[in-house]
């Protein structure tokens, strides 16, 4: 029998270790400078998890697409579009409207990649720009409602039994994705196509359908994150998604998902998202200027990948 520690994926192990390291370093810093150790308080950690749930949701969707060996660069404006649509519609239908916007963008992405076979990187980039254009027209032409609805506020900032509601949303969606990846044919097809799309196609898999479904899932996750973010800041605004694209990809990759597809777990992505949020938070508490934060942030990604993300050396 292997011990349970050996059963954890190597990337997750390293990422968890690094999370602990970040917390310890942060505490040592505050202990010296302020005489307190805020980073071990449950409140602080819960608050960080709440913030991580926005990034975590986006990363969850992104991972599904990356598992196929594709990427979705339209996430920033998908998120913004969903938030803006939700706040503009308002009322009871707000969230449904936001998710519908996400669904439509996901369908367009999926169809472009599956039927036109345009590289996803370039197609989703184009879609991102188009959605951005639409949103600028939307907010510029007249003054739409941008305030979030009470239910959005509650989902983003409320608490149930002392635990942030956003965390429940993340857990629920994450649970669905784990179920999908592990227990349904769709999950198996995702991994298969990420490894060898042709082999999956020749095994009678409807590869186009899977591609479209993956992009729809990614857009829906981003849309949900946008709705929560609008609730979190009580409004939707332009550029609200710009800061989430690269951290989401980083979270997925740090969590051990192969950027070329075919390999990865959601647990890794969750740990990756938490790591990035904690790192950003501790650095800002340490009053690290933005410059230092960017440098550390980039170095951590490269460092972690150099430790466990290297490709096999070629047989020479």
């Amino acid at each position, binding site marked *: 029998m292997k011990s349970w520690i050996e059963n954890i994926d190597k990337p997750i192990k390293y990422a968890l270790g690094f999370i602990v390291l970040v917390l310890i370093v942060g505490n040592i810093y505050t202990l010296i400078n302020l005489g307190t150790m805020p980073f071990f308080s449950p409140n602080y950690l819960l608050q960080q998890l709440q913030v991580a749930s926005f990034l975590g949701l986006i990363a969850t969707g992104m991972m599904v697409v990356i598992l196929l060996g594709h*990427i979705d*660069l339209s996430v920033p404006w998908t998120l913004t579009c969903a938030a803006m649509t939700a706040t503009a519609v308002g009322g009871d239908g707000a969230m449904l409207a936001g998710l519908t916007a996400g669904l439509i963008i996901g369908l367009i992405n999926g169809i*472009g990649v599956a*039927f*036109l*076979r*345009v*590289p996803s*990187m*370039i*197609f989703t*980039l*184009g*879609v*991102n*720009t*188009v*959605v*951005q*254009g*639409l949103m*600028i*027209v939307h907010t*510029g*032409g007249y003054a739409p409602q941008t305030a979030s609805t009470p239910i959005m506020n509650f989902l983003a900032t409320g608490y149930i039994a002392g635990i942030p509601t956003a965390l429940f949303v993340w857990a629920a969606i994450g649970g669905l994705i784990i179920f999908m990846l592990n227990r349904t044919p769709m999950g198996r097809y995702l991994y298969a196509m990420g490894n060898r*799309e*042709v082999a999956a*196609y*020749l095994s009678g898999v409807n590869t186009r359908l899977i591609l479209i479904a993956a992009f729809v899932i990614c857009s829906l996750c981003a849309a949900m994150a946008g709705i929560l973010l609008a609730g979190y800041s009580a409004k939707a605004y332009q*550029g609200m998604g*710009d800061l989430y694209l*690269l951290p989401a*990809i*980083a979270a997925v*990759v740090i969590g051990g998902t192969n*950027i*070329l597809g075919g390999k990865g777990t959601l647990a890794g992505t969750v740990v990756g998202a938490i790591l990035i949020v904690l790192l950003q938070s501790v650095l800002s508490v340490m009053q690290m*200027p*933005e*410059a*230092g*934060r*960017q*440098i*550390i*942030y*980039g*170095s951590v*990604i*490269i460092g972690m*990948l*150099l430790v466990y*993300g*290297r*490709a*096999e*050396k*070629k047989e020479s």
Partner: protein
Amino acid sequence: MSNFKIWMASNWRLFLAIGIFCLIYGTYSFLHPAGGSSRLFVQNSNESFVLISVAMAQTLPVLTGGLDLSVGSVMTMINALASNVVNGSPTEVFLGIILCLCSAALAGFINGCIIVYGRLQPIIVTLATGAVFMGIALFLRPTPGGEVDGDLSFAATFDLNEIFFTYGWPLPEWFENSLGLIPTPVVLIVIVVLVIWVPFKNSVTGRGCYAVGSAEGAAYMSGLNVDRSRLAAYTLAGLFAGIGGLYLALQTGSGNADIPQAGAYTLNSIAAVVIGGTSLYGGIGGVVGSIFGAMSLRAISFNFRVFDADGPLGFISDPLLQPLFEGSILLIAVSAGAARVFSIKNRLNLFGS
């Protein structure tokens, strides 16, 4: 097949890019009241230079089958560096420029080393180093500002005559109304292409970049130094991006570590490379195509400025609609490139290797 036919067949992507540019820019020149004037050329080439550099930078990694998501950050970093060092006495200015270009190449070289020796995916490496370079940019230039040599700014961002005026050199009369009207940025691009790209493309290492992108296994089997070609590609990418950053500093007279702007340049560089006829799968294309791709992208946005706001097509000039038009045209362009998909008869060929 005749040599000419082969030449046409091997370069049709480039010709298409040139055609697209001529069409878009031609429309603009036709509609613009000052269309075809030297002043307008200067203005347009100024507005295009940085994107052109970044697109040139992106071309090389893409040729090798990779991607560089840090070109915007390198550009911004060098922009911030230039706002610190490109001023003072002429010697200091000169050394400052050298320092900028060397730093840019070094940044690219570091990318290359991590990718080649760390055996990591280019996308994710440059994503991370992009953050690092951005951090350095913020460190060098925490708030917009700084100082750039004014004379050099004038000399570099107008026409050739301006160089003579700026430095008080005697200007030959025959020159003033002919060659002197050529915008300096255009000359700079031509120099960069002739001095860096053309020799590189015809070197063993440069051809190795095409070979690696086209068939890495075959390139290795043929005894090519695959690692060296990759390293060179990323180093040159850094250098080209740095040239863009340096120019941006000259153009604005200052430095600005603007994160969203860096991101936008990176993403637009990919679009420009694709419109310029370089395959995202590697092995096909070149820097010259990317230059026309970048200019086409820019020319699209120029066009929106010239439609008569009161005319029947006036809505086109609505500034609110411009991002939408730009995005739609980009999307249509990449989708049109996909038309060949429908002529593929063996569905297995739909899947890349």
